[in-house]
């Protein structure tokens, strides 16, 4: 791809907005990606974690005698061997909630609280031997009673946090209402389940010096936590950026292994490699989503919302992990969504149980809250006898009401919903569905006796969380640009998006821009990639750093060419004079001119062409969208087949539309999984029933239909110079709400069937039970 120099200083330009091919693809397609477990080191040891097989109990003894005798075993450690009792801190503290007493220990010494909790680690010369030895560790646990239902009577459930958010006069709203609709809506346990399990390689490269591969997401934060636990300076630990096989919230948070593996490497003075297997992953990585939502909405006869009440209980599992309470916090903060809700009161409680602890999973709090709210609106519409589309239209905030400051705070920032056009987008989605022929398909299908339905859901997302991100940019001797960002690459294409942003400022062409993400030695202040913030905050930091390098190049060239800066501009190989074609200097000449021995440098001037910039932001931006789905229920099996799925999403500015569409497609598939298939189930003793891919069902190409997206970029965000809004989560956010709506619509077409959906995932058994009760004549099997 070529570029021209004249575009250098102005946006928009060729690259931002273009469907540029991904820089990542070549290495990944050739099998040359470098994932954590691909890293090999001489004399490398292999770790295997021994996990609790009991959901709750007192640790009586751990006997590693036999394990230690196995040839090839180098070390076995338990909680008693740790330097001191260590607990993993919360990364995101909100609402002033103190969770200290619920934090997860690295290794417990007295009590185990979920199946899968690490209790010992074995190190061996060979991964197979480590696994053999782990089997030989004899763990004696006295079983204690388990808590698995956090929505029951409060006495046996520990509530780790209890907080409220509210504004307006809710009691008055409910008093004044013509109608009140209430709904209790449950969401099952899901998790991100990236295809690459967690991996870590820790190499003690010198006394008290560590290099770590595989900690991709928030490497700088994790380095700080690890350094504090080890009593080292942060700078003695280098977290290398590696490829990561999907993140979606769970990978790269600080887990017990993130201490254990580096600590064992230092203790044994040898590199240590660890990779969990899938069974371990499913019981040890952060779970998410499991919440009960009790909602009531106060309405006027015409469907206008007067007030909303919410009571949310999150089943957080055994411990508070790095995310603290942000899932229920975001749930209640984002629950009113894109609607005009004059009065609101919400309470959230974080309950502990004897299950795997929870964290965030793509669209945290929004997937849950949107599902519950949209189903509530469908139910309210039905009760009032108003069309569900009309009910939404009546209540969506209109452009003249935006920006809209909602008297709420979340993630430590005030909520100011920035500009947009919610009803316009909703209409665009409805029009698209009509053009796709979906309403007609439902009508025709029903005429033929098929159980079909259409789902609609609106949502509001959030992205671009501050407070800051930093980035470095530098011009190299050969005229390439290197960008070092604190974002991390989880497959989302951030390398390409950041290169596009850089290429618009320094026009050397995207092929000559190299992006290094998440290397703590290069970018010690980076805050990582999460919450759809990378393109917004890292993107703007990269833009600023590149701008500083560009200014520096112009300034130096000015000295070399004896021309004022405003007569100069950058092109693909150097800096030239705007009108005098003979006056130019190449980037390699400028690189030499910036060298420490250069006569062109002033005595007090820093050498080099590397610059660091910081982008700070006070408020998040709120992208928004609509989901529409076409489904058919098989009355014989209860199976819900999704025939069509559409997402319309406003992203402000689309840095690379192809990448955004890809993010949406992936989110939609995960949404279909969450709404219809995926769930971690437990038996009465707290034993996980979903510990393989045979039981935790991810959607395959057969469950995911042909997907349709419409990316709108009509309302650039005013919170950042690029105008971008995050695009990582919108494909998933409303999927639960939309599919519940679609199934409700389909069930509602059957006489006598109770159509309200009260739980995700919507299983075939649930559907069969509904159909069975409604139409006793059906010949369902079993």
């Amino acid at each position: 791809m070529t570029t021209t120099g004249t575009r250098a200083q102005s946006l928009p330009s060729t690259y931002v907005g273009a469907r540029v091919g991904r820089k990542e693809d070549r290495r990944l397609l050739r099998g040359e990606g470098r994932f954590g477990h691909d890293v090999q080191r001489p004399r490398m040891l292999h770790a295997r974690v021994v996990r609790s097989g009991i959901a709750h109990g007192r640790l009586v003894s751990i006997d590693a005698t036999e394990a230690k005798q196995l040839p090839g075993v180098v070390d076995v450690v338990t909680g008693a061997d740790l330097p001191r009792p260590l607990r993993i801190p919360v990364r995101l503290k909100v609402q002033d909630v103190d969770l200290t007493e619920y934090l997860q220990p690295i290794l417990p010494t007295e009590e185990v609280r979920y199946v899968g909790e690490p209790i010992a680690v074995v190190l061996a010369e060979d991964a197979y031997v480590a696994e053999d030895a782990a089997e030989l560790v004899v763990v004696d646990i006295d079983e204690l009673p388990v808590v698995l239902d956090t929505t029951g009577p409060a006495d046996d459930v520990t509530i780790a946090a209890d907080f409220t958010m509210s504004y307006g006069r809710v009691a008055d709203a409910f008093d004044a209402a013509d109608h009140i609709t209430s709904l209790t809506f449950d969401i099952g346990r899901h998790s991100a389940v990236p295809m690459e399990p967690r991996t870590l390689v820790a190499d003690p490269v010198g006394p008290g010096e560590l290099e770590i591969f595989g900690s991709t997401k928030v490497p700088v934060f994790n380095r700080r936590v690890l350094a504090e636990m080890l009593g080292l300076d942060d700078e003695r630990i280098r977290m290398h950026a590696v490829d990561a096989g999907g993140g979606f919230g769970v990978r790269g948070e600080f887990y017990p292994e993130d201490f254990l593996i580096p600590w064992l490497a230092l203790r044994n003075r040898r590199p240590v490699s660890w990779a969990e297997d899938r069974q371990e992953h499913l019981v040890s990585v952060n779970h998410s989503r499991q919440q009960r939502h009790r909602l009531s909405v106060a309405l006027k006869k015409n469907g206008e919302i007067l007030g909303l009440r919410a009571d949310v209980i999150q089943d957080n599992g055994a411990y508070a992990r790095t995310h603290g309470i942000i899932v229920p916090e975001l749930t209640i903060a984002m629950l009113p969504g894109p609607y005009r809700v004059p009065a609101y009161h919400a309470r959230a409680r974080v309950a502990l149980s004897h299950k795997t602890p929870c964290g965030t999973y793509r669209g945290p709090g929004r997937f849950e809250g949107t599902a519950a709210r949209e189903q509530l609106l469908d139910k309210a519409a039905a009760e009032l006898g108003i069309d569900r589309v009309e009910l939404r239209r009546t209540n969506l905030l209109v452009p003249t009401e935006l920006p809209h400051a909602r008297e709420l705070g979340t993630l430590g920032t005030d909520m100011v919903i920035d500009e947009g056009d919610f009803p316009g987008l909703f209409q665009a989605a409805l029009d698209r569905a009509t053009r796709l022929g979906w309403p007609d398909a439902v009508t025709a299908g029903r005429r033929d006796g098929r159980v079909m339905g259409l789902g609609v859901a609106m949502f509001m997302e959030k992205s671009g969380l501050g407070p800051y991100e930093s980035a470095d940019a530098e011009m190299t001797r050969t005229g390439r640009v290197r960008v070092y960002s604190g974002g991390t690459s989880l497959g989302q294409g951030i390398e390409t998006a950041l290169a596009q942003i850089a290429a618009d400022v320094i026009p050397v062409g995207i092929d000559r821009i190299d992006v290094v993400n998440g290397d703590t030695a290069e970018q010690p202040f980076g805050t990582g990639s999460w919450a759809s913030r990378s393109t917004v905050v890292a993107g703007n930091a990269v833009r600023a750093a590149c701008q500083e390098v560009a200014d520096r190049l112009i300034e130096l060239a000015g000295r070399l060419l004896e021309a004022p800066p405003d007569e100069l501009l950058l092109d693909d190989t150097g800096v030239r004079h705007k009108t005098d074609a003979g006056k130019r200097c190449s980037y390699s000449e400028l690189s030499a001119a910036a060298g420490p021995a250069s006569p062109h440098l002033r005595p007090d001037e820093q050498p080099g062409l590397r610059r660091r910039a910081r982008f700070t932001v006070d408020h998040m931006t709120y992208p928004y969208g609509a989901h529409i789905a076409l489904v058919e229920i098989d009355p014989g099996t209860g199976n819900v087949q999704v025939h069509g799925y559409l997402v319309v999403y406003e992203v402000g500015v689309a840095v690379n539309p192809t990448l955004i569409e890809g993010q949406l497609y992936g989110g939609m598939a995960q949404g279909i999984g969450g709404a219809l298939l995926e769930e971690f189930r437990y038996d009465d003793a707290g034993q996980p029933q979903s510990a393989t891919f045979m039981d935790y069902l991810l959607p395959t190409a057969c469950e995911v239909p042909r997907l349709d997206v419409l990316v709108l970029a009509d309302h650039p965000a005013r919170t950042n110079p690029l105008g971008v809004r995050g695009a990582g989560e919108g494909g998933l956010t409303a999927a639960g709400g939309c599919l519940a709506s679609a199934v409700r619509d389909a069930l509602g077409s059957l006489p006598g069937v109770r159509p309200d959906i009260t739980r995700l995932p919507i299983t075939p058994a649930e559907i069969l039970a509904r159909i069975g009760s409604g139409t006793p004549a059906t010949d369902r099997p079993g």
Partner: protein
Amino acid sequence: MRDLHLITTEVNGTQHELVVESRRTLADMLREDLGLTGTHLGCEHGICGACTVLLDGEPVRACLVFGVQADGKQVRTVEDLADGEQLSPLQQAFSKHHALQCGFCTPGFLMLAESYLASRPAADKTEIREVVASNLCRCTGYQGIVDAIHEVATAQQAGPVQP
């Protein structure tokens, strides 16, 4: 007491003599003994297909096959698809259709498609979707993967040498 075997196997056109333990999986042998880390392990229980390689041309789950079973056979992995710097038609189509995001599942899908298109060059989209359903991808929603494979199938159909 380790149960070791000397095997001869051809991997991506190169002959190897290897001593492997009987229980060592083909995936570990490829990744760790031969350094071919393009083959990925997503589940190690035969569901995800990330570890798919070709054994005498047939797609197998390298996590469910033992290294010793490759004795006297030919193995092809993702590292063999490109011709030097030139990406294979499937690799190019995957990139063009944004059929990969994190790329972890990608080698498995590429090898699956490679063997499928060899046996069924004129596959249509429905068939492709069914075949693709034997592997898992968590990032792409499968859209690009189906489109990419279909494009190569269509091109093959148009080509002169296909039966």
